[in-house]
């Protein structure tokens, strides 16, 4: 039970950690000052949520690991984030589309996590949902603005959604830890979020004058620790300090 809960927490926290890292990479590289600040603020919210999850997870393996160990000292196969969030930053439209496809899910997920039987997870969700609602509003606005924008911005957004669509279905896949924790009333049964997710995503894409991909080929693996090639590079960057100077502190 404790082990399942630990794995469950890491699974949900890794999505926030890895997306937070991706957004953090944009610090000082945003297309303009306002969006640069917005993206790094979102990164900060996600990393804040991650810390709360990891601090909780660390109490379940008391004395064995700290939140820093959990964040920085695992190998690639031990990270259980979905493939969507590890996809590299290319152009701004791509970053926004990746964010949007995650935010819609994240908001629905947080709403359900508020009903968990685990009070610490409920506290994290109650806190995080306020932040995630802002993220979703921000990314939806940009998807609409760029999709229903110039010929060039629409083309880039269409290309982004076509490229990312195959990673969406994995969000609703249940892992072993999920199944165990769903039966305890602790985990969110993500498989039930699917219809509402695609309805919401389609509504925004429609308003953005974008075509909803009819691609039925979906890629998965992240939740089992089998990642795309981008993950190794991301971790090499993220873990550099802890690997070079073990146990270093700020």
């Amino acid at each position, binding site marked *: 039970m404790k082990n399942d809960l630990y794995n469950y927490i890491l699974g949900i926290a890794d999505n926030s950690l890895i997306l937070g890292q991706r957004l953090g990479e944009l610090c000082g590289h945003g297309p303009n000052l306002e969006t640069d600040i917005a993206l790094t603020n979102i990164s900060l919210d996600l990393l*804040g949520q991650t810390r*709360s999850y990891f601090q909780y997870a660390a109490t379940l393996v008391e004395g064995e690991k700290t939140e820093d160990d959990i964040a920085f000292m695992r190998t690639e196969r031990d990270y259980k984030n979905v493939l969507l969030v590890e996809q590299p930053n290319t152009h701004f439209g791509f970053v926004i589309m990746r964010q949007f496809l995650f935010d819609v899910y994240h908001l629905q997920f947080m709403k359900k996590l508020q009903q968990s039987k685990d009070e610490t997870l409920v506290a994290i969700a*109650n806190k*995080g949902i306020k932040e995630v609602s802002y993220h979703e509003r921000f990314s939806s606005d940009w998807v609409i603005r760029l999709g229903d924008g110039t010929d060039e911005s629409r083309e880039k957004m269409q290309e982004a959604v076509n490229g990312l669509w195959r990673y969406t279905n994995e969000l609703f896949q249940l892992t072993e830890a999920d199944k165990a924790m769903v039966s305890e009333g602790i985990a969110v049964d993500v498989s039930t979020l699917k219809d509402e997710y695609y309805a919401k995503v389609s509504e925004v894409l429609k308003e953005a004058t974008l075509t909803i991909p009819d691609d039925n080929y979906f890629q998965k693996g992240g939740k089992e620790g089998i990642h795309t090639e981008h993950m190794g590079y991301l971790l090499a960057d993220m873990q550099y300090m802890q690997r070079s100077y073990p146990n270093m502190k700020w």
Partner: protein
Amino acid sequence: MHLETTHIDPSLLPILETVSDPEIPVLSVLDLGVIREAFEEDGVVKIKLTPTYSGCPAMDVIGDDLRTAFAAIGKKAVVQLVLAPAWTTDWISEAGKQKMEEYGIAAPLSETADKDALLGNAKVVRCTNCGSQNTHLVSQFGSTACKALFKCDDCQEPFDYFKCLK
């Protein structure tokens, strides 16, 4: 008011008042409503602190500042971070909102007005420089996660608006 749900020993208030938010130095931690509990037990001051936003980097600094402030009067303080109940902008005191406005940050509006302002449905955020309501949203995220960036269309000054968080 925010003090109703808190448990703070009145004798500790003078010290707590001296500790401010590093991002908005005119606001004390009491104005901000982030101190949920503070009392002395066995010669140790025990403080429960709640973050405004999950990733708020000011929390570590506030924790250090609290320990330093009590150390200055020879007392040891233990600061614990608590997540529940989640902080809301309702916990900012009236005096705090006033000080915030004077500092140049528009204080949070009601939930409905806030939504209107951030969605651009209504011009309700008042410019902290000239008082005009003829303002518009520049970015949903300002210099910190808790603020949005606005610009006044009358005096042309940009200013921060502290977003309503419920």
